[in-house]
């Protein structure tokens, strides 16, 4: 499954400045791990020691917060977009 991941400004130094990266995977967690393999550094920034998403990292699948879905286990479909967004905004 080919998935597009949108990268926030704060992490674009890991992608050589690219704002979108295409990777493979069948769940949100697999996609993000594939992103870390392709561009090392994402893993330690996105996940805590227990392997969960860090408190201030929001991940959206097709514009829905994955915390409202099945979290990192959420299945993804070919061609979908995942956005990684810092949680500290708004209010």
């Amino acid at each position: 499954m080919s998935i597009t991941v949108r990268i926030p400004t704060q992490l674009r130094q890991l992608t050589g400045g690219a704002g979108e990266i295409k990777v493979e995977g069948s769940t949100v967690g697999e996609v993000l791990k594939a992103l870390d393999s392709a561009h090392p550094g994402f893993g330690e920034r996105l996940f805590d020691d227990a392997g969960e998403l860090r408190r201030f990292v929001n991940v959206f699948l097709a514009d829905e917060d994955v915390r409202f879905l099945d979290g990192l286990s959420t299945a993804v479909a070919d061609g979908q977009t995942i956005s990684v967004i810092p949680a500290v905004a708004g209010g």
Partner: protein
Amino acid sequence: MDFVSGLRCRECGRTYPAEALHVCDFCFGPLEVTYDYDRIRATVTRERIERGPRTIWRYADLLPVDDPNPVDLGAGYTPLVRADRLAAELGLGELWIKDDTANPTGSFKDRVVSVALTKARQLGLKVAACASTGNLANSVAAHAARAGLESVVLIPSDLERAKVTMTAVYGGRVVAVDGTYDDVNRLCAELASEHPDWAFVNVNVRTYYAEGSKTLAFETAEQLGWRAPDHVVVPIGSGSQLTKIAKGFAELATVGLLDQVPDVRVSGAQATGCAPVATAFAEGADAIRPVKPSTIAKSLAIGNPADGWYALQTIRETGGSCAAVTDEEILDGIELLARTEGIFAETAGGVTIATLAKLAASGQIRSDECVVAMVTGHGLKTTEALFDRVGPTATIAPTLDAFDAAIDLGRNGDQSDEPAQRSDR
């Protein structure tokens, strides 16, 4: 000149220069402004503040930007009103209302926006932008107009009509998004990455913006005669205001403006239709679970609050409490405050007053405490919430007889034809 020493990640402690940055590049934790408190202590005095303008800028020494000509409509220095009639109804003692309805665009947001756009101009940013539940939209559009900046304001499309009008009138661009505030916020976080020369006040300049809320604590203490209250009740949307009020009281002691280290209990107020912090508090949870909001308190309808975790921490550390109130209770709170103190608050103010009442009834706010309730937005913004509740006592022909009949009717509410009168409202 300001006394800022830089920015620091609240989670991992990494430091950054004072630029348009709001989250840590490493862990995404929020960045906080750090100050040289020794230099502030050597400079600031009560007299220096009291000689300053009757706006938030009298506290410029404790703000993250100083400019002789700030982007300013006169935000701050709002009345602190002794609320004896309300206190009597609630069984409380020394109760005060911080009446932030008196700000230029009718809410506390003028405090944070004045700071954010003054800093944004200094940083050379070109466009004032935000994601808003309404009050911030009003304030950004107005302050941008004042500063001659372009503005782009994004709001959920179901906002109260008054809040839309009060934004659009200033001539900037207003984009209504089909979705919740959290959807709008996500969109703005992505837009901020694409438009690095824009000032999204609550995204890329949020670090500075949030500091403006400290002035609520500064003013409260000054207006109480340079003493901190025992207990404050603060509405929670993102949770930023609550944490910054606690920080404000602590800073006053740090720089020597209070005789004693303050011990202020900070309690939070939410609507049951959007209560992620109150729920976590009640459950003793360590994480905030996001929710899909459904409440008339639209200005607090943030299902995934950026500072929810820190608000929860502040409430627990200060020995405060947190409660949520229903839409009915919110409307009761608006009417109670209006009826007893002559202050007309928006729905978020109803949340504060209803929560104050609830915490007073349960004994968590005590009658021996000096209590301050933060009423942060004007009722004119959300009048539609009350359309079914209040209206003319009677609609009459222009005759003395009709007037006398109507007033008698009002005194004897059990008369049989009263329902017909009510339906005229």
